[in-house]
Each structure stands twice: as structure tokens, then as C-alpha cells.
């Protein structure tokens, strides 16, 4: 792992990303941003983030799910933790990443607006850091 864990946020709302990125950066993470699925896939392949935060409804209604599907097809990214952050619904089951990949192969769901304290805790847990 690099000195600072890298987190990729894929979300089309600049303001949301700005606020969440601020909290993450203040807590020792490096943050990169993708404004849509295509940019998210490109950045994920290029930067190999330690964890991805993914919005669902971007340009397309289920763009986030397609994006996760696509990211998981890359052998180097099959096990990168992906947290779904969405205002799309308030609950979505958390999944263990299936080896087959697929639309729902994220491993945690957060309803927007997110509790950043909780988000930080879960990110640290997932990355094996101590809080």
C-alpha cells in the first residue's frame, strides 16, 4: 500500500464530491474523482485505487451498477472494495463480492446523505487500518 491510501469517488454531483473529498483528505486519504461511469472506469484502471465510492444514478438511471460490472471485469480490480453511495434508495443489501463480478458486486451500501464519520470508520475497517 502507498503511503496514503487512494480513494476514487465516482459521482456526478460536484458539490457532494467536494464535501466528502474534503473529509477524506483531512483524514489522510488521497482522493481522485470521476464524474461519470466512463471516467470512473478509466481512473480505476489507471490509478488502481484502494477503495471506490460509487454513485448509482448518474447520466443513466443505473450507471453505477454498469460501472461496477465493468470495473470487476478487470482482473486487477476484482477485489477492490466498492462502496455504493446513493440517494436512489435508502436500503440495499450489502454483498460479499461474488467471484463472478456482476452488477451487485459492491460490498457496502450507504444512503445519501452519508454520515461521514461512519463512512470513514467503514473505509478504515475495510482497508485494515486501526481507527
Amino acid at each position, binding site marked *: 500500500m502507498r503511503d496514503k491510501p487512494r480513494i476514487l469517488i465516482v459521482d456526478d*454531483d*460536484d*458539490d*457532494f464530491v*467536494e*464535501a*466528502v473529498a*474534503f*473529509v477524506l483528505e483531512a483524514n489522510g486519504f488521497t482522493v481522485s474523482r470521476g464524474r*461519470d461511469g466512463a471516467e470512473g472506469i478509466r481512473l480505476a484502471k489507471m490509478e488502481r485505487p484502494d477503495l471506490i465510492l460509487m454513485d448509482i*444514478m448518474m*447520466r443513466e*438511471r443505473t450507471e453505477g451498477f454498469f460501472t461496477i460490472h465493468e470495473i470487476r471485469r478487470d482482473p486487477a480490480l476484482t477485489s477492490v472494495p466498492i462502496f455504493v453511495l446513493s*440517494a*436512489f434508495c435508502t436500503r440495499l443489501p450489502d454483498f460479499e463480492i461474488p467471484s463472478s463480478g456482476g452488477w451487485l458486486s459492491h460490498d457496502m451500501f450507504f444512503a*445519501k*446523505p*452519508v454520515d*461521514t464519520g461512519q463512512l470513514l470508520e467503514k473505509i478504515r475497517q475495510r482497508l485494515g487500518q486501526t481507527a
Partner: protein
Amino acid sequence: MSQPGVPETVLVIDDDYAIRLSCGKILAKMGLRAETFEDGARGLDGVATAKPDMVIVDLKMPGISGMEVITRVHEIDPQIVIVVITGYATIDTAVQAMKCGAYDFLPKPFSPDELRLIVNRGLERRRLAMESMRHEIEQTVLKRRFVTFVSHQLRTPLVAIHQYLDVLRHLDQTSDTAARRQEWLDRCLARIDELQNLIADWLTLARVEGGTLFKERVKVDLNQVIREILKTYQQMAEAENVLLEASLPDGLFVWGDRSCMSVLFDNLITNAIKYNKPGGSVTVSGTESRGEVVITVADTGVGIPEECRPFLFEEFFRVKNDGLKKTAGTGLGLPICRKIVSEMGGTIHVESEAGAGSTFRVRLPAWREPEGADGSQNHAGQAANIDCR
């Protein structure tokens, strides 16, 4: 299932060989797909695999009775039309079969014409039932998806505001953070405005759909309406370095609601300014000929990519354009325009070249001098028949 190009399927279940043979022939001649079975058990298997549109069943058969076949066919698909053949055509058995869910009955012996008549009638009913079921499902799905989508659109600015305020609450009140705090508070206010606009547009759309925005239909001079709008946006255009031009003859009269006409051209003109380029222009021109007023709003802006044009008038559709990150819009302006125009019996079209500009062309029925006292009533009657979808 009845689909275009696919023949409808009719199953005949009868233990009488002659009946099966003749029915099969007649049905095939009618262009239908016919399958015949000699008893209830085989017939029900056939229903499960062939998924027929119609079943013709003999009431008196060895094995499973005709009555039971009716019930079990409807367990497979309640929309299958069932006609019973009965050799002992008493009113009682016919009534009992109908109670079990049969659509009609055919007393033995019957002529080919009688069979054709009853089959055609039954299939017609089946088509109507399927059509209305399809329509109902479509409407439900559309409505449900739409509600989800609208609530998502409304939630998005709220989420951003929440997230900013949450961080601001924890941010040290030092001079280092002053600029950032100010910027974020400004963004919160901007997102609140976005939400306000979204709600306002949403309400306008609902009012146009419900017809309540069309309070009155009067003679409206579009020349005057458009010139007032152009005056209002003169400053905005200058700030964007966009030239506003108008070429409108006197007396462009339509029969409509003044505030609706304002909403319509306000949307088109502000779009033309917003999606323009510095140094560009917006030209509004109008003509009247053959009972039709045509207004075009042409800009020299970023244009609309071809693949986006079919969706341009759909609710919440927004053209993806990297150069336009900062251009806030609700995605409801053009749907509102389309609804207003169609409510008035007109049309709206767009021509565009990506990178070179767009031209919106609105055609509306021109106002006419009423012929006698009932002139206005004609217009009102006309308006009531307009399909607003």
C-alpha cells in the same frame, strides 16, 4: 399471444375425431394456428406448452370434464378465451360453463360459419383484453419509474447541501477556513435555488398537463410577448456577450393564454442565451401564413448532438456536454414547452448542428377573426380535442 406477424393459436379439445378434424381445417383456413387434442389431460398439457389465445372444449368427454378443463385453463392463464362445445345444449349447462369462466358456447351440430363467427368474436375480445393489460402495465411501470426519478432529482441538491453543512459544522472557525466556508455556503444557496427552480418547473409542468395553466384563451400578440422577454434578458445576454436580434412582423396573433406564451418563449430564449458561445447571437423571427404562426428561435451556440435530439423534449433529459458543467438547468424547460405547444394544437421542432447552433421552430394556429358570435366557441371546442401527450 397475439403479436403482429404471429398467427393466433386456438386449441380444440374434443373426443370426437370428426369435430377435431373439421375444426382444425376451418381454423387453419382462417390463418390461425390450430392444435387439437382428444381429451382433457392432453389438452391441458397442450395449453401449458402452446400458450394459446383461445381454447374450444367439448363439455362432455371421458376423463377430465369440460367444466374442470375450463377452470384449469384459467389457472394457467386467466386471459385465455374459452368457448365450450355442447352436444346437449340446454340453457343450464351453458350457464354453468359461463359461470366457470367460459366466454361463449357452440351447440352441436354447428356450421363452419358459426364456428368462424364465434372464433373471431372471441379472439377480438382476447386482443382487447391483452391490449388493455399491456397498456396498464406500461402505465404502472412508467409511473413508478417516474416517481423514483423525480424523488431522486429532488433529493440530489438536498444531499449536497446536507453534506456541506455537515462538514461546515465540524470545520474550525479559523481565518484559514474563512474562504472555503464562504464558498461552501454560496454553493449551498445555489443548490437551494436549483431545488426551488426544480419545484417551480415541476409545478408548471403539472399545471400545463392538468390544463389549469390555461385559464383563459385570448388574442395574444406574440410580437409583444417576445419583445418583452427579449428586453428582460438583454442584460443577461450582454453579460454572456451574446447578441439578441428579432425579426418579427406586427400582429403575430394566436389564440392562447398570455402567461403560457411567456413561459414558452422565455424557456426557448433563455436556453438560446445559456447554451450559446461568447460572441454568438440569438435570432427570433416570426411569420404568419395560411392560418399558422411560425416562430423560430435560432442560436449560434454549442448545438445538440444528433443522438440526443430524440430525447430533447423528455422530462429530465439533459444534453451531456463537458463545456457546460456550470450551466444549471432543471431538465424540464423543453418538456414544458412541448406540453404548452401541443395543448394549443401546435408543434415544436428542433434543427441543430453540434458545435454550430440550434433552431427551435414553433408552429401555432393563428388567431382568426371570429365569424359571428360563435367564433370563440369553435376555438374552445377545438382546444378540447387536442391530444396533450
